């Protein structure tokens, strides 16, 4: 026991004191935050204001076209035509196409206008024409607007659950997907770390020196637990770091900017091409709801459990792969494939089960330990016990515990033989033989 502790200490300390650990720990959240802030900033500042001159107004355009102060401005000058609109500071000139008899419209411009601008113009034109037609049928515009407002208000549907809570459909989606992705990525990062650690011991030929004082199984478990501790440390630092940044961030982004952005977003609604950058803002806005509306007391323990469980399940397998590889890292590829496939598969199931948490794929994916750490997190966020009954959660957890006991046992056998085997690459067939023997 004492020896495992020594191994754990070494694995933990050498990694945590490494510069790359510090770098990745502090850079990762900064990059994420920078990405969010950056895209928000871009979304606000890169929207070009476009001035468009409307000529040959058939009579109803001036009354009905609405300018948007931040993107498209319609003007109705008298003395502008195709030859001088650029000089007068217009990006384009909108007119009835003289070549066609039917009322078709065309925008002449020197540079092609952005999709967003065209969408806006088309939307406004559609509205203007509709109003014009309605007017001809003697329906007042105000009346129509009030009708549409009333119907919009009354048509709001909320999804109320059996428990009486109102379902929040967006947030669980983000949290479930986020947790799933974090587990997915960390399984690769830390699983790979275990594998490289084992390979290092093998290629540097220290394995036999160590194994003459420590049992191979102790060495493997020490490494797995030590790296798990590194992973948890990193995760904890990330959570603290992000929590601090999330609380500080609103101080840097002025209320004015946020307001401006909200306006911009509202203006985009109803426009097909207008939702580009809204995800960034949603995340900013979501920080408040994050704190209050999610059942963190369930999600955090579950996340830690599946994070650790999933890691332990795969770490031993990665260790056994590392133990049979010789100097050539390319050998790792073919041996790693069978391990990586289920992880990737789990990710695919996650993305479907997040829409459809009751589907058979989601159910089995969250019970079978090969995929459960990733898939179950996506489902849990949707609500326990509303979506995932308690028995499913416990079954899944139980299976995962049994699963990692089994993989650790089997991997220990492969590791014991593999780590002292030089000059020969192990195959899966041979490894199965090693498990069966003794």
């Amino acid at each position, binding site marked *: 026991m004492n020896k495992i502790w020594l191994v754990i200490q*070494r694995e933990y300390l050498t990694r945590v004191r490494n510069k790359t650990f510090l770098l990745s720990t502090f850079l990762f959240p900064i990059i994420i935050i920078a990405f969010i802030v950056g895209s928000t900033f871009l979304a606000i500042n890169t929207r070009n204001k476009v001035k468009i001159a409307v000529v040959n107004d058939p009579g109803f355009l001036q009354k009905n076209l609405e300018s948007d102060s931040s993107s498209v401005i319609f003007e109705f000058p008298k003395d502008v035509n195709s030859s001088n609109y650029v000089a007068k500071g217009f990006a384009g000139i909108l007119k009835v196409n003289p070549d066609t008899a039917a009322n078709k419209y065309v925008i002449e411009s020197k540079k092609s206008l952005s999709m967003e601008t065209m969408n806006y113009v088309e939307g406004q034109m559609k509205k203007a024409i509709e109003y014009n037609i309605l007017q001809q049928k003697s329906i007042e515009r105000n009346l129509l607007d009030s009708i549409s407002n009333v119907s919009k208000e009354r048509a709001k549907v909320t999804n109320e659950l059996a428990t009486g809570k109102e379902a929040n459909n967006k947030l669980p989606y983000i949290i479930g997907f986020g947790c799933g992705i974090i587990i997915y990525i960390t399984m690769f990062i830390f699983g790979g770390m275990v594998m490289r650690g084992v390979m290092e011991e093998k290629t540097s030929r220290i394995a036999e020196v*160590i194994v003459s004082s420590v049992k191979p199984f102790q060495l493997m478990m020490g490494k797995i637990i030590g790296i798990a501790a590194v992973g948890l440390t990193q995760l904890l630092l990330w959570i603290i770091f992000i929590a601090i940044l999330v609380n500080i961030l609103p101080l840097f982004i002025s209320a004015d900017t946020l307001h401006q952005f909200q306006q911009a977003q509202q203006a985009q609604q109803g426009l097909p091409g207008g939702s580009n950058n809204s995800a960034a803002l949603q995340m900013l806005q979501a920080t408040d709801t994050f704190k209050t509306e999610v059942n963190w007391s369930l999600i955090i323990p579950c996340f830690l459990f599946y994070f650790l469980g999933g890691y332990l399940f795969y770490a031993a397998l990665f260790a056994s792969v590392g133990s049979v590889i010789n100097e050539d890292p390319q050998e790792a590829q073919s041996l790693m494939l069978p391990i990586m496939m289920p992880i990737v598969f789990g990710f695919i199931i996650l993305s479907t089960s997040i829409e459809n948490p009751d589907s058979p794929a989601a159910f089995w994916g969250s019970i079978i330990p090969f995929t459960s750490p990733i898939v179950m997190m996506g489902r849990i966020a949707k609500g326990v016990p509303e979506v995932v009954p308690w028995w499913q959660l416990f079954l899944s957890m139980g299976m995962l515990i049994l699963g990692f006991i089994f993989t650790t046992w089997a991997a220990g056998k492969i590791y014991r033989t593999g780590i002292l085997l030089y000059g020969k690459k192990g195959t899966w067939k041979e490894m199965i033989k090693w498990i069966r023997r003794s």
Partner: protein
Amino acid sequence: MSLLEVQNLKKYFATQKAVDDISFSVNKGSIFGLLGPNGAGKTTLIRMITGIFYPDEGQILFDGKKFDPINDVVHIGYMPEERGLYKKMKIGEQAVYLAQLKGLKKNEAMTKIKEWFVKFEMQSWWAKKVEDLSKGMSQKLQFVTTVLHEPKLIILDEPFSGLDPVNSNLIKDEIYNLAQRGSTIIFSTHRMEQVEEICDHIILVNKGQKILDGTVKGVKHQFKEDLFSIGFEEIPAGLNGNPPFEMVGTKDHQYVVKIKEGFKPADVLNYFLQQGAKIISFNEMLPSLSDIFIKLVEGTPLTRQFQAITA
């Protein structure tokens, strides 16, 4: 009194009888040579003695009791042929870590490492990384980490490979010192001149079996071919009559002769004295271990063939 006793040890792998019924014993405080060609089963044998492998059959007695890998490994120091250190780890920390794995307390380990580092003039290495060391330097470090915990049994597999003569001698002296202070040393190598120089007792293993066991002196006598070299002031003109030997060769002022069966060395001397030859030296030529090794191993295939084992 033997520190280690190996009795009828067997270890079969899927395609080879790696160790096939080997027994021997190693006396306390002796330097024991474990010889054998590549692939003879030496490493497998050593791995069983160090508790890395379990024997299929047979048993090992360590210090008079049945060998218990979990508790006894702290009394063993093993420097394998395939050896290495953590490249990215600082040398001092690494030595402390390896000593702790052998059951030493941290401060205890520190003091001992510092003593050894002074002895080997390695004080300035403490904060360096292993990757900064040359092969010879890391070899010295490896030796220190092997013997640091003052094990009862030290197993060294090719300890001098990659060392220059100066450092070889340094290590050799330490091996003698350790033996004098009561450690028992098993020394595995192909380099016969070192074995002759260092070892008290040897065994030779080939194809998983022990084919020779004895003291260095005893083995040499066992394989002597009754060859003598005789040095003359002046080479005799010719051999008259019926000499009690056969000529094997001449070199400068020396004859190398093989005594015929039934005769003794004194008969040879008598013969030359009667001839009036002026003898200045008369030596028995014992075979070198290297010759014996080659003689015994020769004829067996250079590398062991794989075979199906049904056992």
